[in-house]
Structure formats: C-alpha cells, structure tokens
C-alpha cells in the first residue's frame, strides 16, 4: 500500500483485448424493453409516482407514468411545479433512459491485482465491498486522521454522504458545482447584496422588459424555467440583448447581438455603467436609498468610456451606447442575467460583481421584472447527536487563501492530494459520488497524478466513467427514478416542496444513496446518526413538522405554501441588506479590507498565441453531464459533438465539413480522440466551439470483460482534456477555464508508423 504510484487506471492496455472493443450497432440496443407492437400508454390510464428530475441541477418535479406491467413508460412534468410548469426539457423527458441504460454499474466492484501485476475489477457482494470501504476509511483515519478522507459530490445524492462524513468526522468536502461553476457568481452577488442567488436564479424574466445575457446561452443550457420565461418575454416583445462571441441560439432570438471579443466582458460592463451613470439612466431614488459608494463608482467608471471599450471588446461604441440606453429604458424591469457557469477568466468574482452593480444601478434587485425575493420552506433537520468537530476542514484549505470561498474548493482539496504537497492538510483518500473529476475539474494530467497518489478511493455512481477506473471500490447507485432522496425545498416565488419517490425497484444490485451511506455509517460505528431503518421515516417526520406527510406528498408531488414575506420591495420601504453597510455595496467594503479590488477594473487576459484558436466550450440542449451522453434516448438526439469552425479558419486549414480532426493545446497535449468539423458562421473567426462533456474514455475491465458507456466512449473530444491553463479567481479559488487555446491537427497523430 505504501508505494506511491500504485494506482493504475483500470483499462485495457495495448491490444490485450482489442476484440472486445467492437461497439454494437446503434439500432440494436433498446430492443430489450421497447415492445415491438406499437402500444400507447395515455397518462390517464397509467399509475403515476412523483419524482424530482436528476438529469440536471434544475431538479424539475414530475410524474413517472407506469403501465400495468410496472414498466416506466414516460416522465412528464408536474403542472404545479414552478421549476418546469408541467413541461420537462428533452433531458427530463428522456430521463427514463438513465434507468433503462444497460451500461449502468450493476454490482459492487472491488479492485484486484492478478499475479502478473495487472489490475482489474471483480464483481463483489455488497458485504464484501462495504467491508473494504470500512477497512479503507479506518486505515486513512489511523494513518492520517479522518480529515484526510475527502468527499467530492454532486446532486441530490450528495447530502446523504455529507451526513455520513460529518457524522464520521471529516468536513473535507466540495462539489465541482462550486469552484468549477457558480461560486464566483455567488461571491460577486454576496459582496454586493449580502446574499447569493442560488438555484433557480430569482430573475423575474416573466415580468421583465429587457434581458441582458452575457455569455449565458439560455436555450442551449436548457435551464428549464428560464427557457420558458424567455419564451414569454419573446411573446411580449421584450428586448433581449445577447453578448456572446458565438452566435448562440439566444443571440438568434435577441433584439440585438453584440459579438464580443472573448475575455473582455468587464470592459463592456464598465462602459455600460459609464453611460448609464453619465446619461443618468439609472434609478436615482433606488440608488440613493439602497446603495453605498455611488460617488466612488461614478468616479471609477469615468475612464471607461464606450469608445475605450470599443477598442477592447470590438463592439462598436454606438452599439454600447444603444444597448445601455435600452437597458436604462427598461429600468427597473431590466435584468442583467448573472449567468450560472461563471468560472471563466480568473477574475470572475469581479465580473459578476460588475453585473451585480449594473443591476443595482438599474434598480432591478427586489423589483418586479428584476430580481424577486425568494422564499423557501424550512424543513427541520433530522435529530441526531452533534457532529464531531474535525481538526481541520475544507475551510482551512481554502478560506485563508480566498476570503470568498463560501464552499469547498474542489480543485484545492484535490491539490492537497498531490505527492508534492507537504502541508498539514494532506488528502490521502477520496470518496466520489456522482461526480467525475477528470471531466469536471480542469488540468487532467494533474488530476491523474493526484488520483494515483491516493491510498483509497471509493466511487458511488450510476454509470462507469473515467473516475471509476481509479477506484478501489465501486458502488452502483440507483438512478433517481429508483430512489428516495431529500425533499426538494427550492426557494422560489412561492415556497414549495417536492417529493422524489422511487417509481420502481432498483435494477440489478444497485442501491439508493441513503442506504449506501447508512450501511457505511453503521460499519463505522455511527449508529447514533442513523436511528432509522428506512429514509422514508425521516422524510415523513420532517414533512409532518410542516403540516404535510409522506402520504399527502405522494398524491400531490409538489406542495405550495403561502408566502410570509413580500416578493418585491415596497415603495420607499426601508430594507436592510446583509452587508457591512446594510446597503447594496457598489463599493465593497469587505473587498477593500481584504485587499481585493473594491470596484471591478478591467485587466487584459492575454491574447491568443500565434497559430492557435481560442477554445470556447458550452452546452447543447440535449445533454448535461458526461453521463447523459450514454442515455440511449438522449444519445439518439446527439451522439457526437462537432467542432465549430469559422469558414475563414476552414479555408486556412483546408478543412471540409465532417472532416475528422484532432486538437492540441499549447502544452503539447493532444486530444485522445478525433472530432468532426462543422464549418459555420456562428463562431468567431479566431475561436472554435466544442460542446462540453464528450470524449469519454472511461473504460474499465470487470472480470475479464470490458465495461464502458458504449454509446459515447471515444466519441468526440473532451473540452476538459484540452484545458490546461487554469486561472484561479483570487476571491474564491474558482477555476477560470476559458483562456485556453487549441491547434487543429488534420493528420491522425496516433497513426501507427509503418513497420519496415
């Protein structure tokens, strides 16, 4: 166990089992459950079970419809759910494919070493696997302390394992949804308004007159509620201004599209402030009553004129004036959308601060057509003894470096697992649930070194992925359609709760997250924290405390509660913001104290190296994560990505549509797989666009057989693989991933040399 580089990624090396790699034809997968005779099942004839979608983080509530043979036939949105209003997105509609996917993890797996030193997995019973986990975790505890076992998680299954880790005594945890996604945005808004945005973002788009999107591609990201809201905005003839280097779907539906040079958003935002302040387009009463630091801001933005910004952003000054006036005209029913994935250029907290400030100038916060005040049902916490206090937590790792690290910074937790890390907060064991750091955390080579340096790795997931190959123990989790999870208590316009109830029994030997966490907990001697047999008991008790019950929720799916606080600010209402000054801080007193810029400034990010193109990545509406790619229904919608290339670039490289190319980044890393070219005017001439999540290479070897996501394995290029230049946001520790560049290779770099 002591040897450092002991962890081989479990895969087939060389031509060892080349015969097993043949992928079966697309048409043959599914026949096992799609009955041949066309038989329709109308919703009225079916039995229905309430669910909360887990295909993405929007967590829409819906109904699972089953036929007489108890087969899941469809999932349809719950009409009274404010996240989806009865209409799921393609991923939610096709969510049942996750359940039917035959590539799922089926049994627990344990890493074994054969006599010749080859490592592979063997199928194991739950008892065997849980015993290994108990031994492994206790071993980490003995050698390094419980804190050295880190938890990396995502989604609704996370809380079960958070509970387990906290009960055991480790608070070394984080989720990529923070540092790789929205932490910078939350930090920017907290610094300004004293409160973050959460999910769903409380943007009152349905009542807005003007919506500004900065690199936020609603419609491609399928944030269901917002997509629907924007649709109503289009119906009402509202103004939509989209700022994007790519002609996104929303850009096409916008009143105006500002094709910005990537990485210069802050310049544009400052220039907008300049116009809005100087032309007095801001909400004067609102700014006077609720904000702090207006005069400083006014002084600060004087040098950022549209003419200045035009040179940086490549957007004509006239367009900047025009769009600023449109925004001012809509005020306060103007929303400058904060976006969600905002880990871009390493100054992202400042960028979202600028967005927050702009919204404050327009008087949007707490106003109809701007940002509404949310309210959420507070369910009582389950009763258990107090959690033990760890010697150190994620806060020790990140909080000292980044004052605005409001949650575990995954990349820094992982960094402490590097062999060269000599500090006091060593991470020597990792527990992953529903997250795959190879695709979600940048700098793959480093991540691999970290994983190779771990002494114990557990993976709990529904699908095999890259991380599965690094595990000592793999536990198959039930999909969201087969399991019970915490009640969804979303903050929204109307406080509401939603129930995810198992519609069917888990397939094969998979188990729900709560069961897995509890079993591990019992083995670790945490009986006091699990004084229930079935998680349903906990939920029933919680629900009864707020005047509902399991029985009622099974019937309703979603329950609304009356609001107790106003949704918008009343006219001239006195309002205390949770900041040092009690006001919206245009000038951040905290930032000034901590040595960050109290007001955003524009800093250039460095230009594209010669011979390279900027790598722009983003979502496509039919996929969320690596794991949705293998959902047979969603794979059917889009089974391989295309690399968007401008015709000018195509001419220079001599590229044709559908041509296979490879990518190489400035550090010399070449993509594992190839990708087909799409020549399109929708992308800026010096950039390429790649949809996120493809290029899966998570192939594992179980009892002599290959297991992989066979529909998506090796298809396309993973953007994460190409990202090596990571810019750390000083305020939060978030990873800026958009300053990355690639070169297009037209010749197969893996072509075997002809042997003479």
């Amino acid at each position, binding site marked *: 166990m002591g040897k450092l580089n002991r962890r081989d990624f479990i895969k087939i090396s060389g031509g060892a089992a080349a015969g097993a790699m043949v992928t079966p034809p697309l048409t043959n997968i599914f026949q096992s459950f799609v009955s041949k005779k066309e038989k*329709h099942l109308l919703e009225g004839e079916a039995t229905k079970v309430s669910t909360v979608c887990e295909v993405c983080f929007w967590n829409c509530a819906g109904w699972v419809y089953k036929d007489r043979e108890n087969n899941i036939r469809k999932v349809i949105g719950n009409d009274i759910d404010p996240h989806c209003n009865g209409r799921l997105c393609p991923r939610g509609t096709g969510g049942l494919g996750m359940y039917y996917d035959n590539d799922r993890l089926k049994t627990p797996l344990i890493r074994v070493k054969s006599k010749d030193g080859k490592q592979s997995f063997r199928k194991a019973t739950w008892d065997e696997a849980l015993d290994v986990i108990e031994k492994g975790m206790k071993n980490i505890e003995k050698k390094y302390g419980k804190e050295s076992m880190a938890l990396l998680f995502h989604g609704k299954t996370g809380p079960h394992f958070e509970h387990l880790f906290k009960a055991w005594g480790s608070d070394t945890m984080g989720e990529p949804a923070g540092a790789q996604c929205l932490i910078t945005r939350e930090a920017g808004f907290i610094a300004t308004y004293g409160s973050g945005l959460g999910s769903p973002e409380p943007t009152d788009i349905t009542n807005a007159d003007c919506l500004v999107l900065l690199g936020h591609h609603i*419609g491609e990201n399928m944030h269901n509620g917002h997509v629907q809201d924007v*649709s109503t905005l289009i119906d009402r003839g509202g103004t939509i201004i989209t700022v994007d280097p790519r002609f996104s*779907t929303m850009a*096409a539906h916008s009143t105006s599209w500002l094709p910005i040079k990537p990485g210069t958003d802050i310049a544009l935002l400052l220039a907008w402030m300049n116009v809005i302040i100087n032309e007095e387009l801001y909400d004067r009463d609102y700014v006077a009553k609720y904000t702090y630091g207006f005069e400083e801001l006014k002084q600060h933005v004087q040098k950022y004129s549209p003419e200045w910004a035009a040179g940086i952003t490549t957007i004509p000054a006239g367009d900047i004036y025009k769009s600023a006036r449109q925004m001012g005209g809509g005020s306060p029913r103007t929303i400058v959308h904060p976006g969600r994935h905002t880990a871009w250029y390493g100054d992202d907290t400042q960028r979202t601060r600028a967005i927050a400030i702009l919204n404050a100038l327009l008087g949007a916060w707490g106003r109809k057509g701007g940002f509404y005040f949310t309210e959420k049902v507070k369910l009582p916490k389950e009763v258990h003894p107090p959690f033990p206090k760890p010697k150190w937590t994620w806060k020790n790792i990140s909080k000292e470096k980044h004052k605005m690290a409001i949650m575990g910074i995954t990349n820094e937790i992982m960094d402490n697992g590097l062999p060269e890390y000599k500090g006091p907060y060593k991470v020597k064991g990792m527990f992953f649930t529903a997250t795959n750091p190879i695709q979600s955390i940048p700098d793959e080579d480093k991540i691999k070194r970290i994983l190779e340096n771990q002494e114990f790795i557990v993976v709990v997931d529904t699908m095999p992925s890259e991380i599965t190959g690094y595990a000592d123990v793999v536990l198959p989790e039930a999909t969201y359609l087969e399991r019970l999870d915490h009640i969804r208590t979303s903050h929204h316009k109307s406080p509401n709760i939603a129930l995810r109830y198992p519609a069917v029994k888990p397939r094969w030997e998979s188990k729900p997250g709560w069961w897995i966490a509890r079993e591990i907990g019992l083995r670790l001697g945490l009986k006091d924290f699990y004084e229930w047999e079935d998680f349903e008991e906990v939920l029933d008790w919680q629900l009864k405390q707020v005047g509902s019950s399991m029985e009622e929720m099974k019937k309703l799916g979603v329950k609304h509660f009356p609001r107790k606080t106003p949704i918008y600010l009343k006219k001239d209402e006195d309002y205390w913001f949770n900041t040092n000054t009690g006001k919206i801080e245009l000038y951040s007193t905290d930032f000034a104290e901590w040595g960050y810029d109290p007001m955003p400034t524009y800093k250039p990010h460095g230009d594209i190296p010669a011979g390279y193109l900027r790598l722009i990545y983003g979502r496509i509406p039919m996929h969320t994560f690596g794991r949705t790619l293998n959902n047979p229904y969603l794979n059917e*919608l889009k089974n391989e990505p295309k690399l968007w290339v401008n015709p000018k670039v195509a001419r220079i490289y001599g590229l044709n549509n559908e041509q296979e190319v490879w990518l190489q980044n400035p550090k010399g890393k070449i993509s594992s797989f190839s990708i087909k070219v799409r020549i399109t005017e929708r992308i800026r001439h010096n950039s390429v666009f790649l949809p996120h999540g493809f290029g899966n290479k998570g192939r594992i070897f179980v009892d002599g057989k290959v297991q992989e996501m066979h529909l998506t394995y090796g298809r396309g290029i993973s953007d994460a693989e190409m990202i090596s230049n990571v810019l750390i946001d000083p305020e939060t520790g978030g990873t800026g991933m958009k300053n990355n560049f690639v070169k297009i290779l037209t010749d197969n770099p893996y072509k075997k040399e002809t042997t003479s």
Partner: protein
Amino acid sequence: MRYGMAIEVNKCVGCADCVVACQIENNVPMGYSRDWIMEHVTGTYPVLNMHFESQRCNHCDDTPCVRTCPTGASHVIEGGIVKVAQDDCIGCGACIEACPYDARYFHPDGYVDKCTFCDHRVEEGLDPACVSVCPTTCMHFGDLDNPDSEISKLINSRENFTLIPEAGTAPQIFYLK
C-alpha cells in the same frame, strides 16, 4: 375538421424535446425518428440569422404518398391525418420516394412508419406528444378549419411559411416567423 400545426420559429431553441417525446410516446425504435430538428443559418459573421425547425410529416392536403401507395395502406383519416396501416403495407417504398420531406422510413419490422399527429392522443382531446412537452410552447396544434381556434388565429395574424411549397403538396404545418 382539419388538423394542423403552427410552430413559432422565433421561440424554438432546437432542444429536440419534441423528438424524444415522440420517440417515447410512440415506441419509435432506436435509430429511427418521426420528427427531427433542422437548423437554418444564413449570413456572414457578425450579421447572421438563424432559426430551428421542428420537422415531421406535413399531413399535406395533396398527398403524393397516399396516391402512390399500391395497397391503400397509406390513407387519410378524419381531420386530414395521414396514416399507414401496418398490416396493409408491403414495404415497397413508393410512399417514401413520393414524400418531398423524407418524413417516412422503413420500420425495422418492415412496414413504413411516420408521424401520426399522435391521433391516439388527439382522439382523447390531448395535444400530440411533441406539442405537449415543448418547453418554449412554440408548437401549437389544432383545427385549421375553425377560424376561432388558437392555431388559425396565429396563422392568420403572423407571417408564416411552409416547407417546399413548390412540391405542390399543400403542407399543413406552418412555421411562424
């Protein structure tokens, strides 16, 4: 009674919810589809136009597919919905060749399959599956003969186009600009 569809391309985001909903509702085998999304881009960066079209059988008024069918398997039912009777279809492919929209395909079981406007749902007063799930509500289904129906009003009040009108099939799916 004349069923038709109106699709607002100014709202459609091309998410393909309609495609997956159809696949699930109608047990369309994997690798096949009754509806699909086309993306239409014109212009030169940065002066561009784009829209998506959710396409399927146009349930035309003038049906070359039904005309060329040698057995009568392809037929029109009440409301102008074009259907294929599986047990009458010999799989000759004449209707596939006759359709300018490539809306028909050979089901792996041999017969020709296509969009039915989800007539089994329409009978029950429901919208077709594709329309019922659309997150942007850009799709509308209804009676074109009734001037007071939502769809008639939309088509009459907004600029619209149909696909390949020059093929002379009088398609009944209208794309609203």
